[in-house]
């Protein structure tokens, strides 16, 4: 039997190589030169991260409607947004993108918000040479997937720095604790950045405490954190857990400020209720910014969807705008040409100037917002802006 093994291995290697070669041949999707321009959108419309998916889709849809209302692209062709739900699951995200690219033949893809799902679906876009623009995936590794992956938000090393600086300089914290969600690349990356910066500033960071998305009882880890008496606690995960964490912390008598990243921006955060007092987040944009660009966006969004846009919606809007701009400048619906145009994107967005750098990221300032809870709803109140 042993004699056959090298042979078998060789056969397997050959088979894999052959199938890879076949796939490469069929990459360039055929796009017609007339009719609607198909753009894909994938996001978490249901599941744990539903708020992310719904907001970013609304934002993207609004941008598409604006562009179509103004006459469309490439000599009057309209954009059609094809939406796929990934149910907040990474494996579904890559399925959704595969479908959008291979069956629907979209020219570009918008999504995802959660880094973990962008990391799952990004390689598919890269393989089929279809540009992907993520509205809000802040994990560094997302755009490192390849040269077809772009984003319109800042990245976690910067966001972590902003949060750490705010805690150290403004809240005068000396000793901090960090709770991280080990099931989310976003939370892990943000935690690393916070720990790095806060230690550099001369503060003390307690050993990060871990939990997993979907956990509902945090009292054991919170009691342990409480015993070490930190001045500030960072909860670097997403909003569904953040709401419960803050609430249970207050029930344990922990009164210190809780800080989070942009992952706290989600409808279900409001379930933290009164416990959300004395919490701060870093965010991409502030709806109460007096800049007319922002105010016009907020007004138009409210007229269309009957509620205030959150920062994820603003980023969804910007992501669609950037992709449309690249299609228009490239004068084409071919992946490689759109990609080249995306790499030189530089336009004014709702969330700030969208200028792609060599790593396909945009450098933008972050805002710090205070979380307030009143009349059953959460409001993020602008505190300060921190530039890169």
């Amino acid at each position: 039997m042993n004699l056959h093994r090298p042979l078998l291995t060789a056969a397997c290697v050959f088979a894999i190589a052959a199938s890879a070669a076949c796939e490469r041949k069929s990459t360039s999707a055929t796009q017609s030169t007339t009719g609607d321009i198909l753009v894909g959108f994938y996001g978490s419309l249901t599941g744990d991260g539903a708020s992310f998916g719904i907001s970013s889709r609304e934002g993207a849809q609004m941008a598409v409607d604006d562009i179509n209302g103004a006459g469309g692209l490439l000599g009057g062709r309209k954009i059609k947004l094809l939406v796929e739900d990934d149910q907040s699951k990474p494996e579904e995200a890559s399925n959704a993108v595969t479908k959008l690219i291979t069956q629907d033949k979209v020219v570009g893809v918008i999504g995802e918000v959660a880094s973990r799902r962008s990391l799952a679906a990004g390689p598919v876009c890269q393989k089929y040479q279809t540009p992907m623009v993520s509205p809000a995936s802040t994990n560094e590794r997302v755009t490192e997937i390849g040269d077809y992956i772009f984003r319109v938000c800042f990245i976690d090393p910067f966001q972590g720095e902003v949060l750490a600086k705010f805690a150290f300089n403004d809240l005068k914290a000396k000793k901090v604790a960090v709770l991280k969600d080990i099931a989310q690349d976003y939370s892990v990356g943000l935690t690393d950045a916070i720990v790095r910066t806060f230690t550099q500033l001369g503060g003390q960071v307690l050993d990060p405490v871990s939990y997993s998305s979907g956990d509902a009882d945090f009292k054991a880890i919170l009691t342990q954190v409480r015993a070490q008496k930190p001045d500030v606690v960072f909860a670097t995960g997403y909003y569904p857990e953040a709401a419960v964490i803050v609430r249970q912390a207050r029930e344990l008598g922990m009164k210190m400020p809780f800080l989070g990243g942009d992952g706290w921006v989600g409808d279900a955060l409001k379930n933290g209720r009164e416990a959300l007092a004395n919490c701060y987040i870093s965010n991409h944009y502030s709806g109460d910014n007096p800049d007319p660009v922002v105010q016009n966006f907020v007004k138009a969004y409210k007229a269309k969807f009957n509620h205030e846009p959150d920062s994820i919606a603003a980023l969804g809007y910007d992501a669609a705008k950037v992709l449309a701009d690249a299609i228009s400048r490239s004068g084409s619906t071919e992946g490689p040409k759109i990609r080249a145009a995306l790499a030189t994107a530089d336009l004014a967005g709702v969330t700030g100037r969208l200028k792609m750098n060599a790593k396909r990221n945009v450098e933008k300032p972050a805002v710090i917002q205070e979380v307030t809870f009143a009349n059953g709803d959460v409001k993020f109140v602008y505190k300060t802006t921190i530039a890169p």
Partner: protein
Amino acid sequence: MDTFFQQFINGLSLGAIYALIALGYTMVYGVLRLINFAHGDVYMLGAFAGYFIANALNMDEHPSILGAMAVTLGAMAVCAGIGILIERLAYRPVRHHSRLTSLITAIGVSLLLEYGGQVVFGATPRFFPQMIRSQTYAVGGVQITNQNLLIIVVSVVVMFGLQFIVHQTKIGKAMRAVSFNLSVAKLMGINTDFVIAFTFALGSALAAAGGVMVALAIPRIDPLMGLMTGLKAFVAAVLGGIGNIPGAMLGGMLIGLMETWLGATAYSTYRDAVAFAVLILILLFRPAGILGKSVVEKV
């Protein structure tokens, strides 16, 4: 020291949740020798039933203890009905087949409820209305909320209540008779179908009460919430000795304490594994559980 006692209280609060569900597991097993894997999902349905009733009563804005009781009773009634339905449609047709058939049916029902739940309710987690405003009591540095206190009290009351029903009432006697020998019980004139349906109704109503109680303390509910909690409650029942009512209580508390204890260490992310490690150990060394009696089966 504060931390130690706080963790103890945290563990008891969590353990009481498992105990409440484990009681239902153990009762159905005690009577039918059937591990009703769908029990955790009935618990989920209870939480959702409570959610819809509470929202219909607008409890989030008008919290009241009376309303909370009404919601709990409503959810219990709904789930008792569902329990009877499950027994009638899924378990009764296979009752006279091998035990493995029932077990597989139970897993099927469980999956049906979980994924059916996702279709009906959606996968997005919902937040249970605060029917009773959270209040924290502090003794020294140890804090406990009124909601957690309620869960502990309710689980103890339920344990004694069940013990009473099974050992002191007529229907309890019938349940024990059915458990002893189904055919002979039938020959003695016991309406076995009714007794079994009653067992399911009672077990499911308890699961619903558990669902509403837990949703009060940990307000996040979703169609898969019964999966992990149900499995851990099952382990709790086995640990205490499946079929044994005080055993379920003890097992639940122990699992809660162990999980909390591990959650407080650097290995906090392994906390879900604790229950299953315990299951393996208990099956290896004391399959009858802590309070269970091992019975030699004649082959």
